[in-house]
């Protein structure tokens, strides 16, 4: 079977490559050196390319990091690099805007920015300043200070020109099944659940979806994998569907698609996704990846805990439901440091989220060294319901970054349950937080900082829930530049 990638509109046969070769390595080896390596961990965006993908509303161009996408994941798919944008009639609008607004200095980050702007050109939902920041927060520039690049983005965002890229959106891209073995490594992308169970029986498996975490094992830790199984093509994995009292969200739903969905369905979830990785990462990373990664500092897990979500776990011939939160002797979904309740032969198929009680107030907060594209020092999600008399009827306090697993503050919750909400009951309960958690020092924050911020976030949440002013910081960019006035 021929393995090929449609690169800049041309079908290119991929020769003998390692199944863990990244798209960036392949591009540069193939002579497409416009795409740069700045970090090989998805954190600088110099390697950004465009990927034609299925979106919730049909075909869509997505900006992604080629440094952590595996070549077999791109088999049969259309990608576009910075070399493929210009045409005989001139530069692409994204390129022209970068020239016109003086968006390049040393030029090394520029191809990546151009590709993030390329995605923005065809987006129709860039309707707020934070989304603009989000669109380019995954691209680092050390020269310009970003102002001219942001102006270029505002110039072209949502322009949706009619061109060969918009025409490519007319047909749903075919994403083929893959079974590719070279040497002692094999990559499988099954399109049927039955094929998955068969492939899983072939040996120890590492599952992969967006490869936004696994990619680092390859590029930073130089690991090899005998059997990689990509779960992205399985039926239902990428779907969000209504169930009796809420929604089922497929484990393969991309974070960027979840973000768009949550805007109208779950404000608290949406708020977390806003500062959740970069656009390029959200365009590849999945709900299931973030949850099964089981990192104590993941950003979705506290939200799952606060929203009382349930994991839908599937194995050959069976499906079971596992609440994320612990209850009684059930440790919940995260059983220990980076360990989940998934057994051999099981995969996470999706999650179920119930509609919030109409009088429940829920919110999420993430604190990190840098606001965008950073891993939390503390992430948190809270849900509170008071009865008519102002007594706490339901309370879920969940944190990431405070313990070896994402965790509820069960003792603190218990302190407040059944109590009227007042300054003194709140302060009394907050004192209990230290019984729930003994956070650690690391380069993202000290134990002191984590404990102090956790308490303060809870204070802020209760204030907010009682109608106080929300403590947020502004996000509107403006300014005047001398050279522009001339």
């Amino acid at each position, binding site marked *: 079977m021929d393995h090929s990638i449609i690169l800049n509109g041309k079908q290119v046969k991929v020769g003998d490559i390692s199944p863990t070769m990244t798209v960036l390595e392949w591009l540069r080896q193939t002579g497409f050196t416009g795409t740069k390596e700045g970090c090989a961990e998805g954190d600088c965006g110099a390697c950004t390319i465009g990927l034609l993908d299925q979106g919730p509303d049909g075909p869509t161009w997505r900006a992604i990091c080629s440094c952590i996408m595996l070549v077999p994941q791109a088999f049969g798919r259309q990608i576009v690099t910075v070399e493929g944008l210009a045409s005989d009639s001139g530069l692409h609008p994204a390129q022209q805007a970068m020239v016109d607004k003086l968006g390049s*200095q040393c030029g090394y980050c520029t191809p990546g920015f151009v590709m993030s702007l390329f995605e923005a050109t065809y987006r129709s939902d860039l309707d707020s300043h934070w989304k603009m920041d989000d669109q380019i927060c995954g691209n680092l520039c050390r020269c*310009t200070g970003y102002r001219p690049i942001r102006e270029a983005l505002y110039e072209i965002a949502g322009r949706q020109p009619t061109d060969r890229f918009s025409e490519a959106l007319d047909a749903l891209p075919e994403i083929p099944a893959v079974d590719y073995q070279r040497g002692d490594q094999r990559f499988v992308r099954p399109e049927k659940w039955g094929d998955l169970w068969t492939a899983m029986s072939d040996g120890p498996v590492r599952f992969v979806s967006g490869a936004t975490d696994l990619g680092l094992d390859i590029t930073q830790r130089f690991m090899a994998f005998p059997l990689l199984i990509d779960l992205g093509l399985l039926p239902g994995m990428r779907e969000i569907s209504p169930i009796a009292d809420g929604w089922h969200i497929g484990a393969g739903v991309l974070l960027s698609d979840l973000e768009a969905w949550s805007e109208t369905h779950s404000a608290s979830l949406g708020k977390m996704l806003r500062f959740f990785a970069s656009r390029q990462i959200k365009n590849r990373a999945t709900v299931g990846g973030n949850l099964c990664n089981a990192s104590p500092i993941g950003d979705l897990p506290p939200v799952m805990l606060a929203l009382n979500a349930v994991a839908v776990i599937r194995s050959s011939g069976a499906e079971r439901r596992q609440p994320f939160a612990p209850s009684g002797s059930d440790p919940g979904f995260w059983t220990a440091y980076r360990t989940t309740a998934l057994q051999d032969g099981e995969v996470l198929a999706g999650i179920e989220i119930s509609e919030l009680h109409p009088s429940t107030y829920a919110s999420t*907060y993430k604190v990190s060294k840098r606001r965008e594209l950073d891993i939390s020092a503390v992430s948190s999600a809270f849900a509170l319901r008071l009865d008519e008399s102002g007594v706490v009827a339901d309370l879920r306090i969940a944190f990431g970054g405070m313990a070896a697993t994402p965790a509820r503050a069960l003792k603190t919750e218990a302190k407040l349950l059944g109590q009227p909400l007042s300054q003194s009951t709140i302060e009394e309960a907050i004192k209990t937080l230290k019984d729930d958690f003994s956070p650690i020092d690391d380069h993202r924050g000290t134990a002191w900082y984590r404990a102090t911020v956790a308490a303060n976030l809870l204070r802020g949440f209760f204030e907010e829930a009682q109608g106080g002013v929300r403590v947020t910081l502004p996000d509107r960019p403006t300014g005047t530049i*001398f050279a522009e006035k001339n």
Partner: protein
Amino acid sequence: MAGGLHKPGPHESAHLHVTGSAKYVADDPGPQGTLFVLPVPSPIARGRIISMDLRSALAVDGVHCVLTVDDIPGDNIWGPILHNEPLLADGVVHYMGQAIAIVVAETEHSARCGAQRVELEFEEQTPIIGIESAIAANAFHTDPHIIERGDLEAAFESASMVIDGVVETPAQDHFYLETQAALAIPEENGGYTIRSSTQHPTEIQKVVAAALGIGAHHVVCEVPRLGGGFGGKESQASPYAAYAALAAARTGRPCRSWLHRGQDMAWTGKRHPFRTDYEAAFDENGMILGVIARLYSDGGWSLDLSGPVLDRALFHVDSSYFIPAIRVEGRVCSTNIPSNTAFRGFGGPQGMFVMEEILNRAADAMGVDSTELRRRNFYGEAPRDTAPYGQVIEANRLPQLVPQLMEESNYAARKRAIEQFNQTQQHVKRGIGFQPVKFGISFTASLLNQAGALVHVYTDGTVQINHGGTEMGQGLHTKMIAVAADTLGVKLDAVRLMTTATDKVPNTSATAASSGSDLNGAAVQGACLTILERLRPIAAQLLGDEAASTSVTFRDGCAWLGHESGVPFAKVATAAWAQQISLSSTGYYATPGIGYDPSIGRGRPFFYYAFGGAISEVEVNGLTGEYRVRRVDILHDVGNPLAPSIDVGQVEGGFVQGMGWLTCEAVLYSPQGRLLTHGPSTYKIPAAGDTPLELNVSLLRDADNPLVIGGSKAVGEPPFMLAISVISALRDAIRTFGKPGSIVELGMPATPEAVLRAIEHQRIESTAGMDKRHG
């Protein structure tokens, strides 16, 4: 092409950048058969190598050879100032990541496998990590450099307030987007072509020639462009070029070296962290009477450029203020981390920050506005016009610039509005801060202030220019094209700028110290003027008035006598060729009249000063310590800018990079000397969302600088220090969480955690103890 001298326009390579066709060193896979070279890094920070076994490394498929110090045909020792750094460890290792050997292999993968299989045994010693450990161990690279003047005893005797304390500034990784890279190609007859991502091609040429034991004339270094430098490729590109060259010499094949981000961050030096102990005396009006400051920089394992970095710090402790009595003393500490090196500002920011912190703390203690305190202490008329090292601050632009900045930024009204806002808010507070900049321009090693150029005119009237500077995003080439086109009176697209190469322009200085356009611009202009002098008589002949040759002018692609009759430049060039007149010339420039004697701490180290000012406003979340920069107003002095939009880019970019240094970028080493923050996942430079919500940048008008080409001023480094205004603004906001009169204690970098700590400190200790003494 838009632009031209003194006109806004894009970067000369903008079209190449946006289409991905701009080529960087690592984009070139090299000729057929190019091998990959990878250093074997020391896994320990300090110790002796007891044994090294290369056998299993050599057995790896694809590995050609592993070279150690014994395989170096020439000199293993190099160094930008002192000649004391081994290219490959000679029995002893001084930092984690130090190159012990180099593996030469068919691919990067096989080189890595080979490097992992080099078996090493060490006798470990306890490494010295951090300035305090170095002071305790009496580990220094240099003796103290002292600059002093005035009667300090009298100053402190008569003071109404004395404060003392410690100021610490952090390290900063350059985080140029393009990591270190080099390609070495063996040529016929023992020559080598080196393509390097370096700010200093001549140094590459020298280091490679010395390592190979051959003459410099056998080595040509070419620099297509850099994906960012910021000082990090001034000296520290050299070893990687030398490794490629050594491998090429051994194998006879082209060899390339290129670092991944984690390797680059772990193996190369950063901005020097500084620790300063100070005492400062003020009178009852807040006027500075005297300052004593002892500066210690963390030089890392070798001297590298630490000496002049420290010097520049000492030269800038005065910042923009007249200090009647002063003693500044500095030493470079020796520690077991990669050798810290040049970084935009080159010690200037670290020196200035000392004085700015002293003023911030004094303002807190006195309960006066820090902006007001700054303005009171500015340099002024004689005798308040002389720097501690004896240079008169000529053409001081701050008296003109600061009032204009205050007015345009609406400072007074905003200050009042912020006070009102803060009274109505519990969790969120705002603050505003002002930062003036006076930055000395010239390499402080005066002999380095020289540059060369080579200009060719062809008979069709087109032009090639070569100069000794490197293009790393700062727009030097854009400016040089504009200078040549303007001088020769031809269109921009008639001028082609050639790859920087040591066979075209020899014996160059590094493109550093913000000096690129001042020095190379004068050299390019000089070469063009020499050619025009030769062309004038020819043009006069063609214009029919041989006697009027001195009146010939060149503009709009023609030579002119008066305004009526012009003859195309191409025709003049062709006629010159036909008359056997050379159409090629070198140009050369050396900065006149500067010099400094460190033994007495006196001299004129700087040709002139660049000035600027910034007002920053922040909003701080008192629950988490998070904050945003709401608005920044900058008014900066670039003289009459050679390329105004390029210069605005330098101002904005420098400001944001400076913000990164003081706010979000934290370099952390473990006690064992391991870099913990070795990628963008753990080391956070500012992202798009961290930049000021409102950014207003203006260039000071009517600011012609007669000393420099086109009336311009250097712009690379000075704007970096404008970012200190963000710290003053943060302190202003943090102060309001406590009672007046307490000194804000804000650690650097001012991460959300550092800010929350400072806020908690204000809340708890709203009347902080401070050393007050009344004279």
